[in-house]
């Protein structure tokens, strides 16, 4: 079992490194999209699946990251790396400012508030404040400066940036269950009264998981801007937020494999089967309904366990 797992992981690494040298540009772009949306869905899962916060406006933070990156580079000619960091940090700060006053809200109220904020966000960028966001057309033909002589806008470069980012996120998620923070949000999510009765702080952990989730979405947004060289409002609306929410629920809350598989189905298959655009929403809608009826815990329900075998074996 352990050997099989290592073989699987090593082959996966080799394949993902070799892939861009074998694939054509269309496939490269599709798989890059997959990597980006997987990272985005994982950031939604931190908030929804791991911490159990019913936030349905996640595309907004993806958008904040994407727009921050685009504006800093297009309007202010900021260095790529600084712009990238700023995308995550600004998303983090806005996430913190938003969650702080509403952290005590119950799930259903929280959901409505977060959707409302997403609508407000779209309205703001549509209105082109200070001439920064470009209104409904967005910002396009962004010229990315090269970094130390390296052109980061080539398809292969973007693929690797997305791959590295997703790998870091997977490591983070994989180790989360083994960390004090990850365990705290698990206990709080499953029974907050019992968790509080053993001294686990509810609001601190809620603030942290939400704002970290929005920060990761912000970083992902920057990579998205890098891939398309353009941003426009429709990629960050409530339809996207609802899809992200559905990916986590359908894939399996808190489940790494589930969420990645869910983003493949929701964001990549539609790209591959573009000619069936008319039917695809119908098919996905039906699939979601059927899946939730037969597998209410998602495609791959999460398994949580955190005492490593090593600890269990010793006496």
């Amino acid at each position, binding site marked *: 079992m352990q050997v099989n797992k290592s073989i699987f992981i090593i082959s996966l690494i080799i394949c993902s490194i070799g892939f861009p040298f074998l694939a054509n540009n269309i496939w490269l772009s599709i798989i890059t999209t997959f990597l980006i949306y997987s990272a985005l869905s994982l950031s939604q899962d931190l908030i929804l699946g791991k911490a159990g916060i019913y936030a349905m406006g996640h595309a907004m933070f993806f958008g904040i990251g994407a727009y921050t990156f685009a504006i800093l580079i297009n309007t202010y000619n900021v260095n790529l790396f600084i712009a990238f960091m700023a995308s995550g940090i600004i998303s983090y700060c806005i996430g913190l400012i938003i969650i702080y006053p509403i952290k005590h809200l119950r799930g259903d109220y929280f959901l409505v508030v977060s959707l409302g904020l997403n609508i407000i966000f779209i309205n703001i960028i549509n209105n082109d404040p200070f001439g920064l966001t470009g209104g409904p057309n967005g910002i396009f033909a962004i010229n990315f400066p090269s970094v130390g002589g390296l052109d980061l806008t080539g398809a292969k470069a973007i693929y690797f940036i997305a791959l590295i980012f997703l790998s870091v996120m997977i490591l983070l998620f994989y180790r989360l269950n083994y960390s*004090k923070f*990850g365990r*705290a949000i698990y206990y709080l999510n499953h029974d907050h009264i*019992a968790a*509080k009765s053993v001294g686990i702080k509810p609001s601190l952990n809620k603030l942290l998981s939400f704002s970290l989730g929005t920060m990761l979405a912000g970083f992902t947004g920057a990579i998205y801007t890098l891939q398309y060289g353009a941003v426009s409002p429709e990629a960050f609306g409530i339809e996207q937020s609802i899809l992200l929410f559905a990916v986590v629920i359908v894939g399996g809350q808190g489940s790494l494999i589930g969420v990645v598989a869910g983003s493949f189905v929701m964001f990549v298959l539609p790209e591959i089967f573009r000619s069936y655009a008319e039917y695809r929403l119908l098919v996905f809608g039906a699939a979601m309904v059927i899946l939730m009826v037969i597998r209410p815990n998602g495609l791959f329900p999460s398994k949580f366990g955190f*005492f490593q075998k090593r600890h269990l074996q*010793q006496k």
Partner: protein
Amino acid sequence: MTKLLIQNLSKQFAALVALDNISLELETNKIYGLIGPNGSGKTTLFNCISGVYKPSSGNITFAHHSIINMAPEKIAQLGIRRTFQTIRLSSELTVAENIYAGYHHYSKHNFIQALFNLKGYRQDEIHCWREVHRAAKLLDIEPHLRLKVKTLAYGIQRKVEIARAIISQPQLLVLDEPAAGMNESEKIELTHIIKQIQLQNITILIIEHDMHMISTLCDTVFVLNHGKLIASGSPTEILNNKQVISAYMGDEHA
């Protein structure tokens, strides 16, 4: 020495007075019983002590801290731990992972150490695992440590909850009907275990309907009826108290 002091405590739910001007005092290292008919306010009193409910008036002092407006997690961190009348465990987790929750606050690693499985993290895990083992041993549930809670019998789940509550070496342990759903031999074993816990310098307050268990264990018993404290004293005094008998039997027997 006084461990917990409750003064003129009242709790109202809309028109219902669940606790009516309760005053009582718990001293260090003793076992106290809290009895009373169904709906008399026993669990409500526990919820006020542990911070789940905010009392309507009155004061609660624990080890010289007023805990009346304190959040439940703060109260737990001060050293009051409890169990629940209806079991509250994470059923998908193993017994070990559930017991660990009680020690989570004292776990010392940071996120970076956990992320890269560094030495500080590994040492902390081993330390926590030892504590889990120690608590499980006291409750005699070591053989079940690796099993998921949902696969276990009710009596064992109750013990897991107690283990989670005592793993942090609290000063005050509050048990809400720990023997509910247990058979006679399990009750005898539990009585023995509770005495062992007391030996670790833990003050214990216990709600229990089984009078035999109460009289074997408790130094002092408090009796609630309709939210009022109607009697307190040694188990024999309580068993012969007319007011208590009439509260349980109904007035015509008095």
